[in-house]
């Protein structure tokens, strides 16, 4: 599914050179739920951005679905992203002018699906996220937990192979956080591959594998006991 080899990302300013990622290599197989942990500045988000194809590595190889991402054009990458990856952010990043339904619909619009199919899919995913009764509401009229559920709905409505989540519970209280995590777990059980960046050990518990990053390097990988994955 996903495979990175000796991935490095160096940020340069006039005077300083910062290595955010240093020759990171790992693989993620379909159906996995991986949590990436580590202290602030360890390179978690940089890694996630590269996996999400909204950033490019300085060196190293990134294979998505056996395709070498580095050899793709910007346009091809955007296409791959649009069809294959869903995003969930800490601060939800919903569009304030669009209501719940329209926010969730947006990726399908950009995929060019016909109206009827869009409607069916959005309604289905809203039901699934238990947020259908709020479909006419605007983001600012919702609680944080509800907003994040909408964001998750939006991330999965296009049925991506991989869901990337960046601190999905970071802005939520524990009850709402748990709600969202349960949702992700359920999605994973239904077959969605999830890669999640988090600070929270509790959230990380939901994952089947935890990758720990420190100063841009993987220092430790844990498989949970009931993991049934083989690499």
């Amino acid at each position: 599914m996903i495979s990175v080899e000796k991935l490095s990302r160096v940020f340069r300013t006039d005077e300083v050179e910062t290595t955010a990622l240093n020759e990171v290599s790992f693989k993620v197989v379909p159906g996995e739920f991986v949590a990436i942990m580590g202290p602030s500045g360890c390179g978690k988000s940089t890694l996630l951005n590269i996996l999400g194809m909204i950033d490019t590595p300085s060196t190293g190889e990134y294979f998505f679905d056996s395709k070498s991402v580095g050899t793709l054009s910007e346009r091809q990458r955007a296409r791959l992203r649009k069809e294959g990856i869903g995003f969930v952010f800490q601060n939800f990043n919903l569009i304030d002018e669009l209501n719940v339904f329209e926010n969730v619909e947006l990726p399908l619009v950009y995929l060019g699906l016909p109206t009827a199919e869009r409607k069916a899919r959005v309604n289905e995913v809203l039901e699934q996220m238990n947020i259908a009764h709020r479909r006419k509401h605007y983001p600012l009229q919702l609680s944080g937990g509800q907003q994040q559920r909408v964001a998750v709905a939006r991330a999965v409505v296009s049925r991506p192979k991989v869901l990337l989540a960046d601190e999905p519970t970071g802005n939520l209280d524990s009850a709402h956080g748990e709600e969202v995590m349960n949702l992700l777990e359920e999605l994973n059980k239904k077959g969605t591959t999830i890669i999640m960046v988090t600070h929270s050990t509790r959230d990380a518990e939901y994952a089947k594998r935890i990758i720990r990053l420190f100063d841009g390097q993987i220092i430790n990988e844990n498989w949970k006991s009931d993991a049934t994955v083989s690499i």
Partner: protein
Amino acid sequence: MNTVNVKIVLRRLFRNREYFFINLTGLTVSLASILLIGLYVADQFSFDGNIRDHERTYRVVEIQNQPGVGEQHVAVTMGPLSEALKNRVPHVEESVRMMYGWYINVIKAGEKEFRPSNLWYTDENMLDFFGYKLSEGSSKSALVDPRSVVLTPKTAMKFFGVERGVLGRTLELDGQTYKVTGLLEPFENKGHLEIGMLLSIKSITVLPFFDFMKQWGNNMLATYVRLDNQENLDKVESTINTLIDEQYKDQPKEFRVKMYLQNIRNIYLHSSSIKFQVASVYGNATLVYLFIAVALLVLITAIVNFINMSLARAVNRSREAGMRKVLGASRLNLFTQFFSESLFLSLFAGVLAIVITQLLLPALNLTLNTDISVSWLFSPITLSLLILLIMVVSLFGGLYPSLYLSRMQPIDVLKGGAGPKGKASGLLSRFLVGFQYSVTTALLIMVSVAWAQYHYATTVDLGINYSNVLAVNLPYGKAHKSMPAFQEAVSKIPGVEKVATSSGFTAGSGDQGSIMVDDSARTRITMRHCYVDPDFFEMMEIPVIMGRNFDRSILSDTNVVILNQAAVQALRWDNPLQQRFKNFQSNDSLIKMPVIGVVRDYHYYSLHWKIEPAVYVFKPKRLYTLMVKVNPAVASGEGNKRLLEEIGKAWNSNVGQLPIETTWVKQEVAKWYTSEQSMTRLFIFFALLSVLLSAFGLYGLSSLMMQQRVREIGVRRVLGASTYSLTLWLLQKHLRLVVVGSVIAVPLAWYFAQKLIEEFAYHIDLNFWVFLLAPVATLIIATSIILQRTIQTARTMPYVALKAE
């Protein structure tokens, strides 16, 4: 895609009502201003557009440079010129003469008497030459026979009470019967010539009195020519001048003339420095260009506001843009999205602007004395230009922000580092704001100068007191018979303080000609001829500064002259009272005309013209204007009504049945400047509008900028900055732009202000203070706009500020 676009556009506009309102108002007002000014400018450029073959039709203009008056361009030429041009100058296809019928006194239609107005004697080919069509009669033959007259529907209405079916009816002009042979179609387009009635020129050329029309010495009519091809203009002009040189070879050098051809389409706007254009209307190109400039400034201001606000808001929207990209939007998707917002706003403003223009058009017509029809507004040309304008506005207003936003990389946005700190957009924004300050300063300067000149023109001491003076014109030919009795009767009316007679209310007559000094050097000088009685100078408060006034008790005083100062200066005379002129009032060469006095210069024409040298003669036959100085108590209201009634009675019993025409001289004088005054007022209006729009835009912009600075301000406050120091710091950023803007504005404004006042021969001097105060005013405007927002922002509690991001 599109449905989402429309929805999001509407919701966004609704959510950001304040900015929407500012942008919409700004755009609507500026588009409406441009429409109004555009219609007016189009109207001004449309003059004589319907003239047949106008691109190769010209008026002959003569350049004289005679001692006295100096160089002047005149639109009158000699009687034989037209024939000579047609027969002797190659490439001249046709020519036609237009002579104003100034000597006609009374027109009788049946029993009713009328005063003539806009009456022209003209050649038989005139209708065909200009392409005028007749609704009755034949344009080929209507003006062929002597004593033929062609009317306009309006004059037909005046004389006969009908607008058609007047062919074959008769009019009596000073006792001679003229037959109506044609009726002009109502003019679709205006021309510089005001035409009321056209008379065949053969009616007069056969009379002995008009022998001067066969001579080259007198300039009394306008000559128009049509060339076979406009490319031959230079050739034709040089041939004409060769021909004229030959005609004038016996004349002293300074009395020879040059001629050039002025295209008929240029006459209306470009003739303000040409003299002797009777019964013509003309506009002012400088003011029209000024209007165009102001319209452009208004447009640019609106666009700048638009760009500034969209840019400032783009920063707030970068998150949305980035998010959309993450979700799969292409650059084109995003560009369309943002651009459609700008397009929608402009379209909306365009529709509102049309409505406003339609509502304001009657007021514009009234103010500028124009006749622009609403149908112009809805003409395909206007509408397509408006659509073009809307496209331009939305392109400029929406293009950069749309490009900026669609270029947004998702990574930058999600990392939170995107936004206002983008160097290019900050620079552009600063440039645009600086530009607006610059425009504001320049316009404030222009407005002050225009207002000062306007004020000067209306209040300056003209050297003559027109207050409470009524003028009554007697028919030219009847004057010397009826005047004495009429004058006597009027002088006895209660409320009348003084009476005097003259040739016109400023004494200046239509005559300007050269006269010979009685000296050995055979000095000749061209002067304005003025006719007054001995009471005129005293009544009009014009001091005799040397010598004496005319005296009724001295019989020979009808053969003496008084000069104005300009004449004395032109002749370089130290002691004018010892000088004599050769007789120029009759053929008796034995009579000499000594100078008995000098009067102080006064403006007998508008401030546009230099005061010409003038010679005053007491010649009762030429005194056809009765000037009546009345007590201020009867200058208005009930007393005025009674006074006019009494004067009317005196008229009826002494002059006759002809309708009386009385005017307050002060109002007549004001008419010299009406077009300038109304245009100056409108110019000031639009200029201030532009300033207001700028202020409006700056208000919106500064609130947006403050919004974005909230965090920075919070941090500064946490670190201990006071409201005062923060306000100062925020203000400083703007004030620097004001200063830079002003430095650029001042020299430009100086240049244009100079152009503006140079339209007047007598004008104010540009005042240094204006150029200092205008930037200060801009500073004050800017400060007051920014201050309120700034203080509000500076006071923001730090925790609110820090939470904002």
